[in-house]
């Protein structure tokens, strides 16, 4: 029967070695290998080369310390290429600037010191306006003059 005829080709040996065969094929290959010393030798050679290749992999692998150092360099580079608005450092700077402004220049500071904040004054008909500096009473007087008289 044709199905019983099974030849161990290089390709089949390689696929078997690499675990790229199904369980049915595997058992047939193992039977054939047991009866063929030349093929077994080929398989053993694959094993020797693999062992040496593993040695290359082991010596090439970075240790923990190197991995940490590599990450630091990677993250620094990522930080530099990020858009400005996505950088945490940018927002820290903005927050620091805002805190500084609130502390020294904000309107809240002025309100707390009892100063009057005037948003707008309509003096279309006024010929002149006089603002008297804050008195000891803590009140500020504003004088407006128009043709009809003066008003406070």
């Amino acid at each position, binding site marked *: 029967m044709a199905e019983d005829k099974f030849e161990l080709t290089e390709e089949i040996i390689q696929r078997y070695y690499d675990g790229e065969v199904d369980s049915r094929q595997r058992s047939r290959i193992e039977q054939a290998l047991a009866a063929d010393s030349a093929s077994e030798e080929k398989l053993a050679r694959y094993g020797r080369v693999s062992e040496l*290749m593993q040695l290359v992999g082991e010596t090439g692998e970075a240790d923990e310390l190197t991995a940490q150092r590599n990450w630091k360099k990677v993250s620094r580079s990522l930080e530099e290429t990020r858009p400005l608005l996505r950088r945490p450092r940018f927002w820290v700077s903005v927050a620091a600037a805002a805190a500084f402004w609130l502390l020294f220049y904000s309107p809240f500071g002025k309100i707390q010191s009892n100063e009057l904040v005037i948003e707008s004054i309509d003096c279309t008909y006024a010929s002149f306006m006089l603002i008297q500096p804050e008195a000891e009473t803590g009140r500020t007087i504003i004088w407006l003059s128009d043709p009809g008289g003066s008003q406070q």
Partner: protein
Amino acid sequence: MPETKVQQPEDDKQLVLQAVAGSQSAFRKLYDHYQKKISRLVGSMVGSPEDANDIVQEVFIRAFRSLDSFKGASSFYTWLYRIALNATTDFRRKQARRFQSAPEKPLSEIEQGARQLAAPVEQSPEGELYRKELAQLVRRALDTLGREHREVMVLREISGLSYAEIAEITGVTIGTVMSRLHYARKKVAETLQRWNVVD
């Protein structure tokens, strides 16, 4: 047999999405998961550990910058491996240009070194040195291969990937992967035999 098959965490895609949205901590998780595998891959194709580190950094920087273009049609790690192979190829090309006129170490010297190395591996500083020098020698044997054969050999033997995964990364059919792998193994074995590293 090589058994270091890549296990992809279920949440790779989630982490990629978060990293695209700007989360560096998500990208850090991806780095932690893959840096060892990438450093093994790169380190096996580049002799100097310093150069290998530079390339590993470059791989992750390139990956982060092009995360937008990662469509998720393939696995994240196969995409990352492709970037690693490209970065290594770029490096080797630049290095070849830079050292074009530098004399190669004579083959007789390599063979002489190999004969001296043909000693049993011991658990000692000498044994460790022996392993390192042996690894250098095998790397030299790998260097005798062309890029396509070297890549397939390393992806199978060092990274332990399946034929299908290698085919996806290198953009060729499984049949081509098998024939390249067969040729590469044969050539490396012959070279190492010539240098008396294997019988």
